[in-house]
């Protein structure tokens, strides 16, 4: 049976947009009580400055206190060993100095220069997928044929996971992050994912390749437990394909709905980078990061919050805050800038941001130049937006050209 949980305010959408109620909270008070998708009470912070304050102060807003907060009755059923396994290597459930230790191992792999060296391979992957689409002809589902496979193949090669395994990990990721899937099934999928990654880690340990898993084994193998390696690699695999794929799918739909802006991305190379930043901001597909726990009594937007409470920073509300830019609800790719918090803020800021940016700035113009007549193959009203997912996106995007 599938549950249909009521999503907290910042996770509700009407098409691309957050719901009006979220803007009302931001305008009136700035902070409100919500219930997380796991049924736990939390404070929702909505203003740009407050969101940045929460995310940049791990001493007062801790990721590690609860890790990934689950309802108590679920946590009680997990063994101590499993709780430890779930947390091992999970950078998002850590504070400094534990977080710093692991992140420092990965930072050199994601510098702007290192990612820049991947550009030719990313271009090749994009062109291959466009060749396949062109050969088979319209119509096609752009999610399953373009938006999902491109970042999946890129992260597989980078990490050292066989692309042949994609059907399994894509399905597990999609369902693990879907709040309409019962919690016990999602926990079972997490166990499956961990076992899958255990196999990859064991293989990398036996014969470390020239990929990120190989690097971690070679350079940090004696500092990392097997569970930590599994946790790090699992996080990179999920974060590497599920996020960018939803940006590519939703971003393409957003451009199709704004044809004059689509034409700019297609025809003017200088328009691409600002367009990527504006799409990141306007879509803010990750509505909030991992909930923080207050380590002391804090005051946000005049609201006193006691110690030990969950706080969710609504990235999607911050990125639509008039304090960030004028007419925040309008998509205008010509003004795109990097001040948004779509990649988060603070020390948990997305590690793969340079990679995601590179994939998007390659894929959007390549798609639009290959198919200048790209159009929806169904009426807009029939496009299926995902409603109960940790990351906003589309079920499918039928297009023709």
């Amino acid at each position, binding site marked *: 049976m599938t549950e249909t949980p009521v999503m907290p305010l910042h996770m509700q959408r009407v098409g691309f947009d957050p719901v009006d109620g979220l803007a009302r909270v931001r305008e009136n008070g700035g902070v409100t009580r919500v219930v997380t998708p796991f049924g736990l009470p939390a404070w929702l912070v909505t203003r740009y400055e407050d969101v940045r304050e929460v*995310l940049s102060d791990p001493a007062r807003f801790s990721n590690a206190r609860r890790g990934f907060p689950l309802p108590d009755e679920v946590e009680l059923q997990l063994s101590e060993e499993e709780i430890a396994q779930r947390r091992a290597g999970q950078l998002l459930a850590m504070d400094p100095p534990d977080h710093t230790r692991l992140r420092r191992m990965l*930072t*050199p792999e994601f*510098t702007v220069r290192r990612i820049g060296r991947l550009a030719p391979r990313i271009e090749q992957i994009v062109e291959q997928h466009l060749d396949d689409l062109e050969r088979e002809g319209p119509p096609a589902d752009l999610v399953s044929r373009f938006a999902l496979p491109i970042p999946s193949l890129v992260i597989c090669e980078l990490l050292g996971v066989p692309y042949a395994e994609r059907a399994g990990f894509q399905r597990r990721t999609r369902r693990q992050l879907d709040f309409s899937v019962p919690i016990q099934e999602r926990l079972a999928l997490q166990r499956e994912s961990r076992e899958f990654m255990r196999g990859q880690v064991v293989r990398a340990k036996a014969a470390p390749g020239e990929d990120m898993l190989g690097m971690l084994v070679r350079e940090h193998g004696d500092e990392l437990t097997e569970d930590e390696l599994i946790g790090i690699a699992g996080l990179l695999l999920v974060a590497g394909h599920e996020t960018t794929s939803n940006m590519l799918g939703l971003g393409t739909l957003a451009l199709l709905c704004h044809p004059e802006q689509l034409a700019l991305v297609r025809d003017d190379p200088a328009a691409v980078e600002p367009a990527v930043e504006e799409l990141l901001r306007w879509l803010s597909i990750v509505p909030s990061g991992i909930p923080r726990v207050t380590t002391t009594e804090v005051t946000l937007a005049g609201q006193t919050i006691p110690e030990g409470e969950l706080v969710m920073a609504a990235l999607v509300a911050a990125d639509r805050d008039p304090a960030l830019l004028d007419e925040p609800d309008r998509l205008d790719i010509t003004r795109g800038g990097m001040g948004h918090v779509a990649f988060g803020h*603070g020390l948990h*800021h997305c590690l793969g*941001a*340079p990679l995601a940016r590179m994939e998007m700035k390659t894929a959007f113009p390549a798609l639009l130049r290959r198919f200048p007549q790209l159009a929806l193959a169904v009426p807009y009203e029939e496009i299926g937006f995902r409603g109960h997912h940790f990351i906003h996106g589309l079920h499918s995007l039928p297009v023709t050209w």
Partner: protein
Amino acid sequence: MRVSADRDVCIGSGNCVLTAPAVFDQDDEEGLVVVLTSDVEGPVADVVRAAVARCPSGALRLIEGQEPPAGP
């Protein structure tokens, strides 16, 4: 105006490199920020201010005004 970077705080997001590549870089070994020119004036200063505002970790600091003259 001077800009300085605290590599102990830096998380290597690369936002500064993307914003002001003439002023910031990342080293290959650790992927952390390297300030290429710490004295910035004119239009470059505005770009550097933007880079500082976009730094997610708070590793960058601005010191407004000219460098004091070297001591005796």
